[in-house]
């Protein structure tokens, strides 16, 4: 049994004192980077590459992996407290996390996020360990038609993402999709809607939109209510107490969305951001009280948090077992492997079991460290909300400005941030929901890409979408998920009439 021996070597590496030290260092830096505006795991790992040159490869990689999942763990803090996501994977966490914090339950919200992240991270590492060798085939099972169907399934949920006018939700979504078409079209190389500006050739960064629509728009409301103080006293805000009911409510979504997030994380190109959105929608779909979502629901926070962390572990499947980097961060990790003289790919598990299994085994410790590091800090971090409003507003603005600047180092993006802030404020004022906008932006771009890839491959025949089993199933699900609410409402009207 080579695999079991391999796993044991992995644990040996991970549980050596150096292993533990480097995991600790990695998750610490990661949490910190995640909390810092604009800095994601990509830049953190890229900066570390020259520093780790010449180090023991396993230890270096264990540390970098820690930075990666640590950042996703830490990124939720600013989403929850300030409505200003520090990294794109935690945008969905602000949907319910921020309202919960506004109700004076910031400590609780952070605790739910931390525990869900921990559970999502740990469950997915177990899955990773048991199934890693087999999962390689899952990672490459999705062709363009299947990706198209997956994105379609995500988009059909738009109407259900918000209450109120369906027309307004759809308008938000279409405009979000339109924003996604800005920039160079990868299939033809044409610049679309760039108004001749070089700054728009790459399209608009997701975080610029998220920070504008959420953080800046929220600041406008804070400005209007600047003389009020936050709900709840300092003590209450920092309280981590979760009731038995909360724990019960969390367990379902955490279990389900860890699994879903993990699977989505395995797919190259999907990643933590898309996973967190799809999990949020999925959980809302099956919830008994979907109307609570968006207003501080425990489930609505637990789902994306479990999912984005699970997706992070999932992203290691194609990287470690196939040498395929499915996201920007894993692409940089691949670079790190190369500098350290390793070649990730199908042969890694056999050639260097201590690296392959060492990284996976270290994630158990990493996740425990993250929980232990974060929980005691929550009462202090949560008190950010007791800062007097005028000062808090300035600091949130500063956070958002640096966050955007650190993405592209372009002042142009700062103007864009301001513009999206105004759009976000107007959208709220006229009851156009923001989540469909942001969902369509992120899924729409991928949907167009995979649709057109499919059409090029099939020379324009639409039947390619139904020839593949995965895409067929997903398309049927999309149709059902679109038709069911409509049919349901017609049926209930008839019954009433």
């Amino acid at each position, binding site marked *: 049994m080579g695999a079991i021996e391999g796993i044991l070597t992995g644990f040996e590496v991970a549980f050596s004192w150096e292993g533990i030290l480097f995991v600790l260092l990695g998750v610490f830096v990661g949490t910190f980077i995640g909390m810092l505006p604009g800095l994601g795991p990509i830049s953190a790992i890229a900066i570390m590459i020259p520093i780790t040159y010449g180090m023991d490869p396993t230890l270096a990689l264990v540390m970098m992996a820690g930075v990666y999942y640590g950042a996703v763990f830490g990124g939720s803090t600013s989403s929850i407290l300030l409505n200003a996501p520090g990294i794109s994977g935690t945008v969905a966490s602000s949907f319910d996390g921020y309202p919960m914090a506004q109700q004076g339950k910031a400590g609780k919200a952070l605790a739910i996020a931390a525990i869900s992240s921990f559970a999502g991270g740990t469950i997915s590492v177990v899955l990773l360990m048991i199934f890693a060798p087999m999962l390689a085939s899952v990672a490459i099972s999705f062709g363009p038609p299947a990706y198209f169907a997956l994105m379609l399934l995500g988009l059909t949920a738009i109407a259900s993402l918000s209450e109120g006018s369906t027309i307004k939700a759809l308008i938000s979504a279409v405009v979000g999709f339109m924003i996604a078409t800005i920039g160079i079209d*990868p299939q*033809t*190389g044409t610049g679309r809607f760039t108004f001749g500006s070089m700054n728009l*050739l790459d399209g608009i960064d997701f975080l610029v939109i998220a920070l504008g629509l959420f953080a800046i728009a929220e600041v406008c409301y804070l400005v209007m209510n600047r003389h009020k103080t936050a709900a709840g006293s300092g003590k209450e805000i920092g309280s981590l107490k979760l009731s038995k009911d909360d724990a019960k409510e969390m367990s379902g979504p955490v279990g389900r969305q860890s699994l879903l997030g993990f699977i989505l994380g395995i797919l190259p190109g999907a990643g933590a951001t898309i996973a967190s959105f799809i999990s949020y929608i999925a959980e809302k779909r099956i919830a008994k009280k979907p109307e609570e979502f968006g207003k501080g629901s425990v489930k609505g926070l637990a789902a994306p948090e479990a999912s984005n962390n699970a997706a992070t572990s999932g992203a290691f499947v194609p990287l470690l077992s196939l040498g395929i980097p499915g996201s920007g961060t894993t692409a940089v990790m691949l670079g790190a492997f190369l500098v350290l003289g390793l070649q990730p*790919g199908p042969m890694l598990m056999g050639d260097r079991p201590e690296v392959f299994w060492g990284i996976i085994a270290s994630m158990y410790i990493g996740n425990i460290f993250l929980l232990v590091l974060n929980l005691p800090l929550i009462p202090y971090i949560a008190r950010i909300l007791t800062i007097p409003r005028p000062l808090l507003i300035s600091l949130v603005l500063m956070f958002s400005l640096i966050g955007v600047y650190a993405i592209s*180092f372009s002042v142009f993006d700062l103007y864009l941030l301001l513009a999206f802030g105004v759009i976000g404020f107007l959208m709220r004022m006229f009851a156009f929901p923001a989540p469909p906008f942001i969902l369509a932006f992120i899924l729409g771009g991928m949907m167009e890409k995979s649709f057109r890839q499919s059409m090029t491959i099939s020379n324009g025949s639409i039947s390619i979408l139904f020839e593949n089993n995965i895409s067929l199933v997903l398309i049927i699900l999309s149709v059902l998920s679109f038709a069911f609410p409509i049919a349901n409402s017609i049926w209930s009207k008839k019954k009433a009439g």
Partner: protein
Amino acid sequence: MKKLLALLIFVLMFLAACGGENTSSNNDNANDEDTEENSGEDNDEWALSESIEIVAPAGAGGGWDTTARMSAQVLTEESLIDQDIGVVNKEGAGGAIGWAYMAEQEGSNHNLFVSSSPILLVPLNGQSEYGHEDFTPIANVIADYGAFAVAKDAKWDNLNELFEDMKEDPQSVTIVGTSAPGSMDHIQFVRFAKAAGVDITKIKYVSAPDAGGVTQVLNGSADVFSTGVAEVAEQVRADKLKVLAVTSEERLDGEVLSTFPTAKEQGIDETFVNWRGFFGPKDMDPAAVEYYENKFKELSDSEAFAEVRANYGWNEMYMGNEEYKQFLDEEKENLKSILEELGLLE
């Protein structure tokens, strides 16, 4: 007030803790500065008077960024250059943002940047105002080669079989690459197809970022993956892909790499090299150009850099200022005619 204080202390704690782990690299910098002062004085020729900035016109982690960072690292560690070297990422628009930034540094002797084929292709596609003519080529240091890979059970065993099928019906084969049409992955394939007599206007090319290319060939969505050699070597070793041809003049070195046939030995007289080198802004002092040229020669010859090349699977390809310039001019003409034929020229 108390709470605020607590918050501040908390932040400072974080800072102190984080600062601690990085002290080693800070010390390095401090030492560099000391030595620099000594060496600066006894040098009559053109000498560096301030720190150097190397721009990678792309995000962290890509080829340009790694080249810039690893070169800066070796130049510093081997004490080839005693000034601080900072690497700056100017990401965006396939390099155009970085080039526009460099165009503003006209006349500077302390700003360098890394580029490769896109500095020829992107202006030709009409997406950058600036091309290599607007800068001073200093030295080329690295070469990468392309490869055309197919699934291991594909029906083609060599490039000629593939091109025979494509001559009959170009639309029956899907080519996948990472970048957009008109950029490197696409053009390198087109060049070879053209040399073999395929109707290149009808070639079906799919662009798949985020490593979608290798996935699509593995799961059978696309047929041929046009990419860099390093991207497929490991898949070949694991017996998942086979390489129909590499774009180099001669076979490459390495256990797996040497098994890849060149297109040339299959009777298709064409090569493609993805060169990568350093440029300065327009109107750089000729003495400074000479200074950097020599430094990059030393870098290229150093053992430390040879190790870096080996790790990344890069090849050595040094060209000095004059030779580089001429090479770039010729290459651009060549690419221009292909893009024109494809209807992609702006």
